[in-house]
């Protein structure tokens, strides 16, 4: 266990001092991921700054990806990431270790993003929903020929309400009933909003794929 600890700190020192290039950095990080996460959590709970930095380095890029999908700018996404990680470090005692650490952190990030949307004036207005229980059911199932960043960019082009519901249902896997309670809307409204978001997104994916094939890059 101690060997793991020393090893991870050694890797981290290399990364922090920028003694390794980007490829090597990724390799080291993946090695560190395989290390004992329980030990990492214990060290973080002891307020060891190196362990905290290591935890951040391990999860920050993927978590910024999560935050990026819920917001409209990278700056906002970083703000959510920051608040999320502060919560992670202050509530780490609650992580019992019976699930994946990454999953637990992701959950906190999603909740931080929702809180950010609810409290931020810029998003709050867009997050109001019309009560429309009728919804279209799209059966389209296009192939997604975009890379992750392009797809995320398209999702971010959706209106905030659509974007949030789409992220919560399609990506995070929440049920409509749960999303409805989270956002204080009816389940019907949630379904309707999701269907609209889905239709819109599929349309954009198709258009974007076409443009990409024709050599025109860029989002809408």
């Amino acid at each position: 266990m101690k060997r793991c600890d020393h090893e991870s700190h050694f890797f981290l020192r290399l990364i922090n001092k920028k003694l390794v290039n980007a490829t090597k950095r990724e390799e080291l990080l993946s090695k560190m991921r395989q290390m004992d996460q329980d030990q990492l959590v214990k060290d973080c709970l002891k307020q060891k700054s190196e362990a905290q930095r290591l935890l951040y380095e391990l999860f920050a890029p993927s978590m910024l990806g999560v935050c990026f999908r819920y917001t409209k700018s990278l700056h906002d996404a970083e703000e959510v990431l920051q608040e999320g990680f502060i919560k992670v470090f202050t509530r780490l005692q609650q992580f019992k270790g019976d699930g994946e650490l990454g999953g637990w952190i992701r959950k906190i990030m999603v909740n931080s993003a929702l809180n950010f949307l609810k409290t931020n004036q810029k998003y709050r207005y867009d997050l109001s929903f019309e009560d429309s229980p009728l919804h279209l059911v799209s059966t389209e199932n296009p192939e997604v020929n975009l890379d992750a960043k392009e797809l995320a960019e398209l999702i971010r082009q959706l209106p905030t309400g659509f974007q949030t519901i789409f992220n919560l249902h399609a990506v995070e896997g929440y049920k409509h009933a749960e999303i409805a309670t989270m956002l204080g809307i009816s389940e019907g409204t949630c379904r309707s909003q999701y269907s609209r978001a889905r239709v819109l997104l599929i349309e954009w994916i198709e258009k974007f794929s076409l443009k990409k094939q024709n050599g025109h890059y860029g989002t809408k």
Partner: protein
Amino acid sequence: MAIMEQNNFEKNVQHKLDELKIPPSDSVWTNIEKRIGKKDKDSKLVFILFFLILFLLTGGYFLFNSSKNNGQQKHELSEIKKDRKATNNDNSSLIKTSTAKNQTSRTPDFTNGSEEKIKTTSIKIQNKVEVPKKKLQVSIIETAERKQMIFLSNNGNQKKENENKLSIEASSNPIKGENEILIQKENIERTDSVLDKKEIAKDSSENNIQAIAKKGPKKSIEKKKDHWRFGITLSGGTSMISKNFFHNFVYAVPTTAYYGGIPSSYYYAPSDIRNSTGFVAGIFAEKNISAKKKISIGISYKYFSLLNKVGNRIDSLYSLPQSFTSLNNVYSSAINLKTYRNNFHFIEVPLSIKFQLNNNSDLPIFWNAGINISQLISTNALQFNSSAGLYYQDNLFFNKTQFGLSTGFSATLFAKGQRPLNVGPYFYYSATTMANKGLYNKKHFNFIGLKTEILFLRK
């Protein structure tokens, strides 16, 4: 089939987005590090403050107990010295007269004799230290009475002897003075009997023996009594909550297990709880316990409030999950956020000690520290259910009786007027946790504000 196809799209999207990784800028970690460090420092600061208050309170208690006795002794000693000076003037002529009458140089012998006697007395009293105060007082008074009786029953020579003894005692040479101080230190009541002897000496010089016999021992010093003074107090400021020194968590969060990126259990996070206004209003009584220390006790009404964001109020039972239909005052945690004020009403009994920090009688500055016992009488504070994402009211969660520590500084304006006004910053920390479960689990109330006190002095 349609649902399966639909799920394929979702799975594709999910799979694609799981690959999304964006390295954050360096400033993010810098900010996180600062904030974590700050929180850590804050909790350490509160911890140190707590022990500092505890230490000062304990120190203050012992100081109060020791200064009470010392203050009385000093006060009475100074009174005795004053009396002695006056008596010396009277008795100097008396000694001269008695020496002339006897034509013998017995005065020095008597002086020596009285020295020895006083020494013996002081030793006796010193030996009696273990005897309880009251007993010692009685024995000394009895001795004084016996002396008077002997004085009355004996012949003229003895009268003169006694006269001289007593007058010498009253005239007090340096050795006697030292012994007397020794006696004083052993017991304050001893001074009373010494003073009675002085009075006997005075009276005997006037040959008024009968009067002395009737008179008996009495206290010649009247203690200056410090009366309780009453006043009103009003404090206004910000009420806030802090976490326990040892725990960082605020409320229970179920652990989420992820299988293939899909969470198998969910929870909702409540909105942050923000500080809000608070005030304390009440009456108090204050008393000087020494020249620079005061003690005060009172009864106050205390109002604290905290803000959080809630969704719409759910009035219909049909909108609630079945297990929540019995709850009161239910709000959703969703959008359409509005600010909810959680009010806490307390009745409080504060007990504090004030220490004057300067010597300025026009503008005395005090540091005060105290303990407060409060009883929560009502609240509309909301709890939060993380699995359903609902806010609801349940007052059973709260610890109704709270013990708190307070400290602050105050400057007394119009100190020499009839309505002195104390104004200064005030800090309160509740040592008892607000609740042992729920949204306020392991949290402590704090209050920081401006405290004013108006004293009503008698004319």
